[in-house]
């Protein structure tokens, strides 16, 4: 009997029951309860060829990760969405609901059963440019090579726009060339000796256009900067990977009339509005181990409103939070930022205002 399983005869595909630890039986199954959550909340990164080191879109791929999924979800580390539900309402919310969190953890600890009738486990289609064909595509002129010895790096490059006249930006989008190593991208514009971050991209992000009739002015002399954060997962360690990413630019045909401006607010420098304005989006930039960042507005009448609170934000996932309903602010309103952070770490919140 044993002889037929001699050395090397058995090629084993490794998978296991993930050390089912807590003896709880779960009533949830992968096919019925878990797949829909993973597809909606994790699949943009955890799919084959995605930025994450493993796909979670089939039972076989997902269930050996049970312990780790439970840990990441309870740590609020995954999915990377750090906005506190109590404040503000944002588009494309990517956080887990209470029910989703509970379902996932229960399944992870309760034996991780597959369930009957596999649902269509083909990942939903990922459209090239969800906002449609861009007016302009800025392609990296040459591939960036992350060699075998490098696991992480930040690269900056500049595109000259060669504009003949000023243009009005409607939206920006980004497409990674090698989705398995591009963690995030930051798009800046530079002119008049100033560099301003206007957009960020992280995997799975839904691109967002400015509200109708609003645009961002790009002067003739401006350069577009692209900052790329490359990081390999353990799967790619030791191998060389090439990336050639692209930035998509969407433009208005003519001056839309109302312009967007971005102001920087930190805990030591608030921003006071000189004229009435509409607040459309907030882009926090953090570094280090930060417990919380809060952005608030104080109106001239002294009333205070919390716009956004990030809880344990991870700097690896810079995300712009777009308000579902832009907030109208009268002149004299003050936007403030407070942070619970170790000394030296100073979060910046970039606020998009339309006036």
């Amino acid at each position, binding site marked *: 009997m*044993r002889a037929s399983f001699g050395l090397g005869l058995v090629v*084993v595909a*490794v998978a296991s*029951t993930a*050390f089912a630890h807590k003896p709880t039986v779960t009533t949830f199954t992968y096919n019925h309860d878990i797949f829909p959550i993973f597809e909606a909340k994790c699949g943009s990164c955890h799919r084959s060829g995605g930025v994450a080191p493993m796909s979670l879109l089939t039972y076989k791929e997902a269930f050996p990760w049970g*312990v780790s999924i439970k840990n990441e979800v*309870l740590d609020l580390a995954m999915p990377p969405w750090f906005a506190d539900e*109590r404040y503000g309402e944002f588009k494309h919310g990517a956080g*887990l609901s209470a*029910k989703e969190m509970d379902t996932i953890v229960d399944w992870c600890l309760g034996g991780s059963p597959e369930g009957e009738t596999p649902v269509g486990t083909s990942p939903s289609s990922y459209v090239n440019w969800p906002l449609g064909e861009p007016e302009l595509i800025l392609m990296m002129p040459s591939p960036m090579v992350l060699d075998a010895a490098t696991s992480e790096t930040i690269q900056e490059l500049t595109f000259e726009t060669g504009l003949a006249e000023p243009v009005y930006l409607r939206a920006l989008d980004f497409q990674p060339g090698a989705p398995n190593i591009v963690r995030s991208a930051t798009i800046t514009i530079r002119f008049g000796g100033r560099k301003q971050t206007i957009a960020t991209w992280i995997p799975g992000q839904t691109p967002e256009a400015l509200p109708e009739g609003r645009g961002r002015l790009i002067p003739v002399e401006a350069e577009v900067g692209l900052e790329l954060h490359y990081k390999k997962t353990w799967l790619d360690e030791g191998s060389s990977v090439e990336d050639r990413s692209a930035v998509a630019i969407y433009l208005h045909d003519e001056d839309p009339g109302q312009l967007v401006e971005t102001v920087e607010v930190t805990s030591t420098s608030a921003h006071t509005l000189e004229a009435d304005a509409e607040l459309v989006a907030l882009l926090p930039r953090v570094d280090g181990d930060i417990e919380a960042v809060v952005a608030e507005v104080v109106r001239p009448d002294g009333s205070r409103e919390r716009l956004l609170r990030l809880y344990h934000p991870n700097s690896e996932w810079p995300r712009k939070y777009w308000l579902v309903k832009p907030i109208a602010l009268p002149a004299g309103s003050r936007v403030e930022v407070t942070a619970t952070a170790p000394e030296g770490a100073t979060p910046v919140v970039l606020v998009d205002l339309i006036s």
Partner: protein
Amino acid sequence: MKTARIVMFLAFATVQALPATAKPQQHESAPTLAWTCPLHREVTESEEGQCPICERSLVPTLVQQAWSCPIHAVVSEDAAGACPICQRDLYLITEEIRFACPMHPEETSHEEGECSICHMALVASTSTRPHQDHNPKHGGMFFMAPDNWHHLEGTYPEGGVFRAYLFNNFSEPMNAKDFKGRAVLKEVFDTETKQTRELVAYPLLASADGAYLEAYVGSDTLPREITAKVQFERNGKFERFDFIFAELSEDLEVVTDATAVSSGELTVPENPNGIARAIADRNVLVRELVTSGAMTEIYLPALEAKDLAVALESHIEASPLETRQELQWAVKQLVRAAWLLDDYGDLGNREKVYAAYDMFDEAVETIQSVFR
């Protein structure tokens, strides 16, 4: 409480599926034939016979040894070393090998062969034997170490004597001589240096046969609070386990009864105020268990409270607009805190349990402020 917990263990001995993943691995150690129970996969015997738990006839199975990570079960290596994902030490585990038809997953065998339906060759996959037994073996309190691998049971068998038994992830006893530790009776936390200073501690010494670590801890009053600090890896951190003994431990292995049935059903009140009250009731129980140090029992009322909170979620739409976001947050915080209490209670770490309980209590308070 104890009986409730044991009943739950049995109800949950589940049979695990045996899938394959994309990373085929070949192992140098030859697979061997063993016998397991179709219902209790954690049973592995070297000979044919009956399941010690349910007396069913054992079925043949193929097992092999591999090195794996306690967190990352995808890892299966031929030799000891570090996990390629998280750098933790790998541990030797026994994997079960099954052969299944790629088209007809119900067609499985412990031998190579072909599918009786479509005649395709069966494909091998492995699974780890489930570990589902957190029952104390010596009448003490049973905790899991933060490495997700080691387990420790503390007992207070006679006045002034503390013992710690060590187990691996499959509840198999480990040799106490391979571990170092001390029993701490008194310590202070210095808020300025953020350091804990031990004032009274006794060494934990291995018994001659390596069955346990033991410390003489002075006087024999009851109840007794003892914190074991044990090092699992050479140069590793000393992990803490907080024990409270209300009485002397009796060295009885818990006898499991295979006919025991599932835990009680939770009745969810119909209206949100009723649910909120039921949550508050659970909070009282959780607080009592947290303060009395009954770590391994906290999860019962805590998980019930989070089930109630999840049921409350469907009522949020009907609550006043200005309270909805707050409630949404509170329900999620309660769910998260309850699972953390479950986790940390298992680890027997009082500091972590207290922190999770603060979150839990804050969430309950918020819910109370809306539904009274």
